[in-house]
């Protein structure tokens, strides 16, 4: 298929005096499944709408392959979009909905018939041609919306939180279906979501956005394991956020005081910090190992604590442990016959030096 690349250079958009997107530089390669991830109001949908042509950037350029398109009207762009609420036209049947874009492209009647049927077959909706959108379930509506966009063979596919209106179980199914479709077609896809799980599961690359800025662009694994700042660490997955102060540093290791007489050792990132700097430490709950008192998995980074809550989740147990003068979240995988620590038990927590991220503590909250 005709996959294209999209390049955003220094994109900015403001409403009145308020910048809602600013200084965004992104290169979305052909065939990427690229996700804009962020909380509501971070500018991700605005960015998507600028690519589709429903908003015009106040600065910067958008290029589709090598063509500047930021001022081109939406109907000339050949960029398919699936709306959050599907936007199926209630006065048309499923067939008419899907055929709409082909008719606009003046495809001969026979060709329309064939391509619509193919598209509906691909999303598993053969036989629903003459239904009205209101007669379909949410999942079916979603697939009609997808078929309607795919049938015109767009150069790029834009998806605006397409799964948010489905119930939890269907959402996971559609996630896989969508992914398979995208990989089969090799279609450059830009996906907007606030659901970090969805983003991690589907994307080849994620751009985490906050307050109109792109904070980090990386593959899912790097986003999760090497967040470059506190916002990314806290927004993507769960993280224990611990305040600390650098006590000492060597070439490849840092020792950080975290209060109450405890300190933590960690690797890497040493070069950017100086002794005495205030820092944030980010520690994933699953990186923490839990053991009986006075027996620890790791040789350093050992904290004594007491379990205050234990929430059994099936595949794992989530704990809150009072340790080092604060509450730490820990997650312990479950397996058959395993003894699980209970509420009130004294435990020893430990973690490897390379599982902890040290991040500069910023004084400013915003990014704009």
């Amino acid at each position, binding site marked *: 298929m005709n996959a294209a690349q999209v390049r955003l250079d220094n994109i900015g958009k403001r409403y009145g005096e308020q910048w809602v997107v600013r200084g965004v530089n992104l290169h979305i390669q052909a065939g990427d499944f690229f996700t804009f991830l962020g909380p509501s109001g971070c500018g991700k949908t605005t960015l998507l709408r600028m690519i589709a042509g429903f908003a015009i950037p106040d600065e910067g350029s958008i290029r589709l392959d090598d063509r500047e398109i930021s001022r081109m*009207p*939406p*109907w000339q762009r050949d*960029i*398919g979009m699936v709306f959050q609420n599907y936007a199926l036209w*209630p006065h048309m049947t499923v067939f008419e909905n899907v055929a709409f874009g082909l008719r606009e492209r003046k495809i001969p009647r026979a060709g329309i018939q064939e391509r619509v049927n193919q598209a509906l077959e691909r999303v598993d909706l053969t036989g629903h041609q003459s239904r009205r959108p209101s007669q379909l379930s949410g999942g079916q509506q979603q697939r009609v919306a997808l078929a309607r966009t795919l049938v015109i063979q767009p150069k790029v596919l834009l998806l605006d939180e397409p799964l948010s209106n489905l119930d939890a179980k269907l959402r996971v199914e559609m996630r896989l279906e969508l992914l398979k479709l995208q990989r089969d077609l090799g279609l450059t896809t830009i996906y907007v979501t606030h659901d970090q799980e969805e983003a991690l599961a589907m994307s080849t690359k994620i751009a985490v956005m906050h307050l109109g800025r792109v904070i980090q662009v990386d593959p899912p694994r790097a986003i999760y394991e090497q967040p470059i700042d506190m916002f990314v660490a806290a927004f993507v997955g769960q993280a224990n956020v611990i305040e600390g102060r650098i006590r000492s540093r060597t070439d490849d290791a840092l020792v950080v005081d975290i209060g109450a007489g405890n300190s933590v050792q960690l690797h890497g990132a040493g070069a950017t910090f100086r002794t005495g700097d205030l820092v944030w430490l980010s520690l994933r709950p699953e990186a923490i190992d839990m053991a009986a008192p006075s027996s620890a998995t790791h040789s350093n980074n050992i904290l004594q604590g007491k379990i205050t809550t234990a929430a059994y989740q099936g595949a794992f147990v989530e704990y809150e442990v009072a340790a080092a003068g604060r509450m730490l979240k820990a997650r312990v995988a479950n397996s058959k016959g395993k003894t699980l620590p209970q509420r009130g038990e004294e435990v020893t927590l430990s973690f490897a030096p390379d599982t902890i991220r040290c991040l500069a503590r910023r004084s400013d909250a915003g990014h704009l």
Partner: protein
Amino acid sequence: MVALLAVLSAFILYPVLRVLWISVTDDQSNLTLIHFGNFFRRPLFREALWNTLWSGCLVVIFSAMLALPLAYVLARYEFRGKLLLQTAATLPLVIPPFVGAVAMQLILGRSGMVNLLLMDWFDISIPFMEGLNGVVLVQTLHFFPFILLNTVVSLSNIDASLEEMAQNLGCHGFRLFRRVTLPLMLPGFIAGALLTFIRAIDDLGTPLMLNYKNLLAPQAYLRITTIGMDDVDGYVICVVLVGLSMVTLLLARKYLSLAEYATVQRAAPVSRQLQGKSLSLVWLIIAAILGISLLPHIGIVLLSFAKVWSFSLLPSAYTLGHYEEILFRVPHFVINTLLYTLLAAALDIVLGAAIAFLLLRTGLPGRNFLDAIATMPLAIPGVVLAVGYLRVFHGWDFPGLGAPLTSSWVILVVAYTMRRLPYTVRACYAALQQVHIALEESAQNLGANRLRTFVKITLPLISGGLVAGGLIAFVTSCVELASTIMLVPRIELGPISYGIYLYMQSPLGRGAGAALGVVAILLVSVGTYLTHRVFGGRAGNAFRV
């Protein structure tokens, strides 16, 4: 529930059924269709029926021509002066059509302003106001806001993404309008058009004022008032009128229920900023349309201050005498109006709230029937209800009144209450629907019984809707003429609309009639303004089906 059903049956259902009964029975109370056969055999009635349908259609067509461009501009563009336009567009609703009719004659009539000018300059005259032309013209200018409001609502209810999706697939400009926007706004427009049609065919005041009698409503009125209560033809005409209105109303409902399908998820769609040339163009169109639709208002104000105004462009002398007459010499028209309409509004609020409560908060059997009766007045022309009342309540002493209901002013209050009940029920229903049942349940959970819950939780939350419903009843009753002129027992018991009608019968009384008209317009304006304040932007809903 039983009491409500009894009241509504006595004052809505029974009178109408009585009219129907008379039209389908002969002297010996045998069922017969002979009266309807006679109706269709009489050329006079056939012509009246045809004229009614034809003029109704013309009113709809012309109203649509005025309303559609305005609706599109209002719903889709942002520009300076939009608020002014929105306000002005509802102004025709504040002038009763029969009041406008007189004013229009002074401006566009045979010896009115415009034709005098035309005679002067080109030696021609245009029969704007002759016969059916006048009726259609006046009704169009009065009723086009119904189409406008309905279309604006349905246009702005179209979810923005429905149009954006079409653009995304390559559709734009007029094609976008034709393939997506138009089909989606059509149900609202059609509902408005049908509502306008009902209003036009039910209107009695305009044709009476313009002295054009060959329509169904004035025919029914004339049969009953001149030939008498026992003339069967009058009842047959009434039944034909009700039938027409019912069919139209049912159609409107059907279309409106279709219209619900495209309601907003993401509001505030494509509002484009208008500037420069296109802004001037839009303003030109707006000025033209509003200029025409404000003609009656201007005419009536001029007339109310005019000492002498005939065969001249503008009044030749001005006076305050007419106001002195209606406010000090014969103030009872104004006083009666306030008394009747405020009473009717209060009754409507009580009935409306009770019905809405029964409909939404109970599962009592028969509540749908109650709803149906309460909605019926929308399809019952004022003439018909009045005929029914005269037939049912004439000649026997009403309990507690010591006289027949028809010889007391109470009959007017009853008529107003029943005619406007559908609006109040809708307003109360909408308000109560907004109150989530959990709000009441949590009060009961905390120990408040049903009554205390209603008083402390429900009532405060729906009070806005109740007030709005009452205001609508007040506003529309102020200018009710059709049932008024048939039911007023004695001149001194008549309200404003009756006074206007009486004064306008003679050339000498026109000034005072116009002054009363201005008072009516002021009352309605104040009421409408308050409704807007209470209802907010949703005031238009009150005028939907």
